[in-house]
């Protein structure tokens, strides 16, 4: 059985967890086994039914009032006891901030190794084989496991959602007992960044600005674009972040976030190697830069040599037209 951890934020299961579940189902089919999903929380049973359509034949609901607050220690204990009972051969996470916090804790508890942020999965001789970027994507490593269960986290926004999964399946509720003093490092509060609905790692379209944006106020031009393009988010180069034009949450690159959206739009970004490391796996890249020699044009599918302050307003009108059709 392949077990997939489903992350809940703001009372909803995350899309990237559906991606991991969909991929888990594809590998389960290869291995003639089933994909099961696991929800951890308090009063979260209602989320189970949605998971069947992404490939889960069974959903475990691990309940405890303590789970209302995330903590790597309590969640990993819950997953550990489920693993002992159900003996999955493979456990998958989405490599979100929660997945990256939790998966290694579970792996260490089980005494097994973990492959992080995988971008390809397949099976070979009845086992999981994954590809993961190393050196910020400058190389790709193919990895297999010598320990069991095989644990991997999958990069968000890379794996397609399953389209026509089943309508229903089995829900298995389990009360998990965890002594309160065993909960270590608990999340007390979540502070949302104002006006940010979508993180750059989750967006379908990332609209980024660099030093060429010239100032903080001009990032409003990019925010206007995100307000008309569905599922988009504002990104930035490190230069723009260092100049404090935008918070470093938005930084794309080797020491920022790695994104693989459908479309990456770069405005006034030169395309330094550390920036490319964070976005060159985007499906399509377009760029506007006044320097025809800028490195960003070497990776762009479509580029405009020109002044971004002239191009953006015109682009906005064209986009509006195209999107309203």
């Amino acid at each position: 059985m392949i077990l997939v951890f489903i992350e809940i934020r703001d009372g909803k299961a995350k899309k990237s967890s559906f991606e991991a579940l969909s991929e888990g189902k594809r590998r389960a089919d290869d291995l003639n086994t089933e994909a099961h999903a696991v929800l951890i929380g308090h009063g979260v049973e209602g989320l189970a039914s949605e998971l069947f359509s992404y490939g889960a034949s069974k959903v475990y609901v691990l309940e405890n009032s303590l789970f209302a607050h995330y903590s790597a220690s309590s969640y990993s204990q819950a997953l550990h006891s489920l693993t002992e009972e159900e003996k999955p051969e493979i456990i998958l996470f989405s490599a979100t901030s929660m997945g990256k916090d939790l998966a290694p804790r579970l792996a260490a508890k089980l005494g097994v190794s973990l492959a992080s942020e995988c971008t390809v999965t397949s099976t070979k001789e009845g086992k999981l084989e994954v590809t993961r970027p190393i050196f910020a994507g400058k190389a790709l490593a193919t990895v297999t496991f010598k320990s069991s269960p095989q644990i991997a986290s999958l990069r968000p926004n890379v794996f397609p959602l399953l389209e026509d999964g089943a309508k229903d399946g089995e829900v298995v509720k389990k009360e998990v007992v965890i002594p309160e003093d065993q909960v270590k490092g608990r999340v007390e509060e979540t502070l949302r960044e104002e006006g940010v609905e979508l993180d750059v790692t989750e967006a379908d379209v990332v609209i980024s600005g660099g030093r060429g944006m010239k100032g903080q106020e001009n990032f409003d031009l990019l925010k206007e674009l995100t307000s008309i393009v569905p599922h988009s988010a504002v990104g930035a180069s490190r230069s723009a972040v260092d100049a404090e034009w935008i918070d470093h949450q938005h930084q794309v690159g080797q020491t920022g976030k790695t994104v693989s959206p459908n479309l990456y739009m770069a405005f006034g970004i030169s395309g330094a190697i550390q920036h490319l490391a964070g976005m060159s796996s985007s499906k399509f890249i377009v760029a506007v830069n006044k320097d025809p020699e800028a490195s960003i044009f070497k990776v762009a599918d479509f580029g405009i040599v020109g002044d971004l302050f002239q191009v953006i307003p015109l682009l906005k009108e064209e986009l509006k037209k195209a999107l309203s059709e």
Partner: protein
Amino acid sequence: MNIYVFVKRVPDTESKIRIDHETNTIKEEGLTFVLSPYDEYAVEEALRLREANGGKVTAVTVGNEKALTTLKKCLAMGTDEAVLLKDEVPETYDGLRTAKTLARAIEKKFSDYTLLFFGKQSVGADNSQIPSMVAELLGLPQANVVTKLEIEGNKGIAHREIEGALEKVSLSFPAVISAQKGLNEPRYETLKGIMAAKKKEIPVVTLADLDLKEEDIAPLLEVTKIESPPQRQAGKIVEEEPAEAAKQMVKFLHEEAKVI
């Protein structure tokens, strides 16, 4: 307050990575090695805490003798001590191996710890695993990807970065913390620090000293292949006047990329 900072020697982020396809490894020749960028924030935070609260900061790395340069850099920044945990096995990309070695060393040699600092991710392996694994192996609370740390006595609140938000994590010490950009602005080494670091002796601890046998920490991941990523092809670059260029871009997005 005794603080240990775990650091790694990694290739500079500007490095062109070349692959040795025979051995499935990265070629070391021509690479410049540095202290992993996120580890710099960890060292800085440890130094600031010592300056505020007293105590001792020790930098620790697992690696071969080349990693002594990285430890010298930490000493030059101001750590009181530095220790090399000598492991001659080249990069395995297996976080558990390093985490087990560190956890054993912490138990046997550094048991007077209050805080264990890491970078949120090492450049190269890009695992983001070791801090959580060490926390689990030692039964400690963890806060990863931390951009702000507030300490009061034996407790702390760590602000940890998540998608579009910050989480406030409550910790009681001892605890594991991994640093994210934004936590602080790392200092440069001073000439005085560099001179002092030159003179400082760096103890070398072997796996045998830690009662670790190779089979205890044998990698459980196998890297069967390392390849270069597919090269992106440069696409269409236009130099039309802005109105026409914008039109063409949207046409491309609509008709060819089919994303709009």
